[in-house]
């Protein structure tokens, strides 16, 4: 008997009493019912609590905001599908600062390690938990680019903010490579006190475009 057959046989034998699968009571909240301003306010509050830096700007000001955040960066990487207009102000330091990562020409891990910052969009955000979800769409790129550089600049469109987690998860396809981000990397492993900044990007800048 293969291990697979053996284990399935053991489980079936263990369930000889035929326990019934209960109906799952889903009486928890399915939606928050919050308005657009409330959603932004709550998301900002949560992100600040995680020690992320947040700016709420009109969509037209996104390029200027990105440019100012990238001022100190010697280099930055963007996914192929990032809104080209967002980088309008960022090429001032010389076009050579910008590196493009694409499925056809992916950067190596070593190259990514030499890059200071990354700019991505996002799929959906959760106001209540301060969570930004990336699903690997063209404006976010593959997972490595938002992981290796030490500074992540992430643009969240106001329309993509959901109130609570169930609303957000309904908006994404679970079979894509997904990363949920709630603040910069952190650890509580020393005396259970939270320290921000370990292996993931130590600096997270969120730009909420309304």
């Amino acid at each position: 008997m293969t291990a697979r057959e053996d284990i399935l046989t053991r489980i079936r034998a263990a369930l000889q009493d035929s326990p019934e699968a209960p109906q799952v009571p889903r009486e928890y909240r399915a939606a928050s019912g919050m308005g657009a301003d409330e959603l932004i306010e709550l998301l900002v509050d949560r992100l600040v609590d995680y020690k992320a830096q947040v700016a709420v700007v009109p969509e037209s000001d996104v390029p200027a905001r990105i440019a100012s955040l990238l001022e100190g960066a010697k280099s930055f990487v963007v996914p192929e599908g990032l809104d080209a207009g967002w980088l309008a102000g960022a090429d001032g330091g010389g076009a050579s600062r910008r590196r493009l990562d694409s499925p056809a020409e992916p950067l190596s891990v070593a190259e990514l390690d030499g890059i200071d910052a990354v700019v991505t969009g996002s799929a959906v955000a959760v106001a209540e938990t301060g969570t930004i979800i990336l699903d690997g769409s063209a404006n976010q790129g593959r997972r490595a680019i938002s992981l290796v550089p030490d500074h992540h600049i992430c643009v969240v469109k106001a329309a993509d903010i959901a109130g609570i987690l169930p609303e957000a998860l309904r908006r994404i396809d679970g079979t894509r490579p997904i990363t949920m981000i709630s603040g910069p990397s952190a650890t509580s492993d020393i005396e259970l006190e939270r320290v921000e900044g370990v292996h993931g990007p130590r600096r997270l800048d969120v730009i909420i475009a309304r």
Partner: protein
Amino acid sequence: MTTFLGMPALPAFGSGNLFAGESFPKAAHRELGNAQLRANLGHATHTIRDKRQAVVSELPDWEQLRDAGSAIKESVMARLPELLEEFEANFTARGGVIHWARDAREANEIVAGLVRETGETEVVKVKSMATQEIGLNEYLEEQGIEAFETDLAELIVQLDHDKPSHILVPAIHKNRTEIRDIFLREMPGADPALTDDPPVLAMAAREHLRRKFLTAKVAVSGANFALADSGTLAVVESEGNGRMCLTLPETLITVMGIEKLLPTWQDLEVFMQLLPRSSTGERMNPYTSLWTGVTEGDGPQNVHLVLLDNGRSAALADEMGRSALHCIRCSACMNVCPVYERTGGHAYGSTYPGPIGAILSPLLTGIQAEENNSLPYASSLCGACYDACPVKINIPDILVHLRSVDVDSKRGTKKVPSQMDLGMKAASWALSSGRNLGLVEKGLPLGRLAAGRDKKIKKLPGIAGGWTQSRDIPAPPAQSFRDWWAKEHRDAGGSPGTPDGGPSSTPSPETKEAQQ
């Protein structure tokens, strides 16, 4: 032989790091002697309790989420064979490879074989209870493969050649100064000027592991959840070491217990609300990664999953105990446990300490394996663990159930009856009728004699000595309630033994005291 229907199969118990090597009272006694340990644990468990309470109170539907979580897990157990097959089909269809492991040894061999196929001799690891349980690191080392733990607390424990003592924060028993000293001693190239400031220590760990992450070809992980309807795996973490391991290497090998399944994508909305708040006391953990088989151009292209039984099917066969398999490893039960808070995790011996470990370990190994039958007694049955459990595992009930399994399993195995057997026999006789009890109570004055002048019994003989180990027993009353009642009512002219003797039945202050 394809089916066991209608015929009981022998349970296949688990092996690996699931055993209390010595009895809990003995181990606890030793650990309690370590004042530094108790101070560290007291500080850490109280910090996390307060944080958890704050973020749990914030949610208006916390109890509804617990109800849903509990029902989802119950339904997973009832439908486990079909859900495993559904998950397997979906994960495989997306390019992942599934392996099945009956026990710890088989799982270790599968992982070592997969690493060998890549030609590598090093792996980076994401913190995982399943690989701790099967002793994977030790096995890989024997096979000439070096495993690097990348979670900060696991790294501390590994560098110190110590054992984890908590499932979420394996180094909870160490304070910052002890951790600094370990880094200075064991970390090649550690800055001699290293301070014990937690951010400084975290940065030292980043420096130490960065090169490993960027060059590793093979990673080994556990999984927090597996979604049957999509074939998706999830890892919940904080530091980004998980993302590094799950994203950068070419080969990813995940080891997961068969009970970790959830039926649907929708169920994730319940568990991703329950888990972070219960474990680190955060609204959400910094990073959660989800992957479904292989995604071209993103992450590892050689993706494996080892599905581990190792006693889970045996635990499932225990109708009372099977809900222990609902556990999502949040550690809330140990953080609130008055026993764990004082003894720490090492006293439990097994990979799974605290209240959940006290039921899970004996369920996975069988109650009479090594000293695991001492674990269900490592509790005051206060019920704090049940209140804190996000999936409502009734740990106190299962503890009591396992105590009875322990007693039953020993019944008739010895020719000479034990003190406990004799005591229980005597109690059964005495409590079976009022007459018998009355006769026993005639012996109360003997107890007063034993108590002596200070009216305290300081040491009871035999197994009853456990009671007087840390407290005295006050002298028994001069007469029993029955005797007093009979006398009182005879004097008052009422018929003895009837409770409605009128006002004269109020005991005098003196006799009242005698009854206490």
